[in-house]
């Protein structure tokens, strides 16, 4: 996949160009492109003067980074303890069945990405599902369809 990498220099300019900025830069790239394009990793290595192997090791260590393009609609199921005991895994299964993908992957048409997240700190609303940064609380198994349709 080819990307417009013009936005990278703006991202690099936000931070001092050194090793300490690596994670912050990767986070901003991820925010911009919804994943880490290979070319962006190469550019990061060059600009911050960090070996590409190190950039790759950091990029694969942290859960926040994705290495494949993600869907238009990103559905994140909170699977923290409270959500778990209130049935988050059942909600997850419903969404997986409907989209025919497992959590952690994206539909082929790049419409949906399904992910789990360890805890978003909204435990009082458990189980919680976040669709493109909008929170849905007290989600029921029967809400799967509604969540997929939501904006």
């Amino acid at each position, binding site marked *: 996949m080819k990307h417009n990498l013009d936005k990278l220099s703006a991202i690099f300019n936000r931070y001092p160009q*050194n*090793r*300490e*900025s*690596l*994670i*912050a830069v*990767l*986070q901003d790239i991820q925010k911009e492109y919804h994943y880490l394009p290979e070319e962006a990793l190469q550019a990061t290595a060059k600009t911050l003067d*960090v070996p590409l192997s*190190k950039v790759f*090791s*950091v990029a694969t*260590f*942290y*859960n*926040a*980074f994705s290495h494949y393009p993600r869907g238009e609609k990103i559905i994140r199921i909170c*699977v*923290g*303890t*409270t*959500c*778990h*005991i*209130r*049935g988050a895994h*059942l909600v997850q*299964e*419903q969404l997986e*069945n*409907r989209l025919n993908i497992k959590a952690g992957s994206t539909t082929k048409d790049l419409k949906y990405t399904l992910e789990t*997240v*360890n*805890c*978003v*700190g*909204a*435990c*009082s*609303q*458990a189980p*919680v599902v976040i669709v493109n940064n909008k*929170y849905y*609380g007290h989600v*029921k*198994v*029967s809400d799967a369809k509604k969540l997929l349709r939501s904006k």
Partner: protein
Amino acid sequence: MHLDNPQQLIDWHDKIIAKQKKIKKKILVCCGPGCLANGAQDIIDKFKTVLKEKKISGFTVEALKETGCHGFCEQGPLVVMEPKGLYYTKVKVKDVEDIIEQSIKNDKIIDRLLYNDPQTDKKIERYQDIKFYSHQKKVVLNNLGNINQCNIEDYIANDGYQALSKVITSMSPQKVIDTITKSGLRGRGGAGFPTGRKWATCRKVESDTHYVICNGDEGDPGAFMDRALMEGDPFSVLEGMTIAAFAVGAKQGYIYVREEYPLAVVNLQKAIEIANEKGLLGDNILGTDFSFNIKISRGAGAFVCGESSALMKSVAGEVGEPRAKYVRSVVKGLYDRPTVLNNVETFANVPIIIRKGASWYQKIGTPKNSGTKAFSLVGKVRNTGLIEVAMGTTLREIIYDIGGGIIDDRPFKAVQTGGPSGGCLPASKLDLPVDFDSLNEAGSMMGSGGMIVMDDLTCMVDVAKYFLGFLVNESCGKCVPCREGLYQLHALTVKVSEGKAEEADLEKMEKLSEMVIIGSLCGLGKSGPNPLLSTIKYFRDEYMAHIRDKRCPAGVCRALITYKITDACTGCMACIAPCPTNAITGKKNEMHVIDQELCTKCGACFAVCRYDAILVS
């Protein structure tokens, strides 16, 4: 205005107080994690538009406060009206006009928005009279429901920055450390290490640079106290860190915030900018030669980065792998320099201790565990929310008096504290005082303060399996005992949950746990088996039911349960469409049947049935 000396801070404080005295009525809208997820932002916006349209004498938008978490998340979104403490629950956007028209303009109470006490079935007007609040002791969370989140004037009006001013003008670094030591403050991140001792050690190490880091990683699932503090009262964290920096001689600080908390980053960033502008952070604080800067470092979704040495690696932009701590990070931490790392709640306690004195603080709580502790009380408890109690309060008081007991009056089964490093305590431990030492002794731990209540519908094997699965994913992989040991322990719990385990497997699990604990480098591995060991210890019967009788008493473990439709079924057909495998058949007004061959036990039918006609056995 930039404050160039401590006197200017005092003058500014007096000016703010005079200005705020003119505001007779205030509307406080809770913007804590729970209320925000429930639409509090829309309520704020509505208040603003309505207040703009309707001019109300003596009431302006300034009297509308977007506060941090007020606590009672279960009842959110919350709107509180001061000075009376009038308390509205489950407020919706459409209620806003009514609130302004009736309660602000005409001082009338809107009955339908009041909290209804389930025990007495009576409406309660003021939050102070609700049991959820009246049994708490708010010290560190005191500002949260009361002040505008990122408003420094509100913070100063509530005695903010008085402690820093006192420290800079009249205390030596050693005196600050002595005060913190005397107060008995212990690290609120979980392990409970004496804060004063940590600072004293750091100060003694000779180095060109010292660092202060605030751990806002709060990785324990089910905990959101630190999120609430960072979002709702960011200045208290900054002030605490600045005092720590003064005490240990640091010039640079970091706040490490987990990436799942984007709003915390925004609010802290805003607070840092404001504090810098005012001369309360940055170079020459309050005109003295003391300088301290704070940078925010965002985490990237790795639980292990809550561990001190891994966190410091992550701050430096590296992979967050812990190191062996023959030399502690307080001596050789970030960039090999002496570093004080404390958790958010610990720092937020510091200004209060300096302001009110060590003896005052010591009187709260118990002798070896002074002060209070914030908890997120969640799970199958009726009143979920953010609470703060004096150390030594019993689990029973927390769960029954504050928490209002178990949802649907089901039996209490266990309470989980300490996240994946903690354990599950049974009903026989309900009278245990909650403090660092008692929880450790009972096989759990304080952790950062997540308290997850479980009822009889929670399977303890499933809970152990859940935590082990979590840790398998989060282990950094450096130590074999942790990486492989937890993996095997998880596989064994899966075996139990599928009814395929033998009695000997329990012993195997206990033995392997021991090895993981001995052989792992950091806290993740060392305490990883805790949820398993505590559930085996207190709920052995339940494990035996899975192993011997091939039965899951809580009706959770899928391989051991069946869903059946009973004659309570009215034939409403609601369960037919949600079934992903089309296992349910039946005609309108006739009892439905589940084809056991096709059923995947996903629970979809159980969740939609309104007649309790689906039996899990």
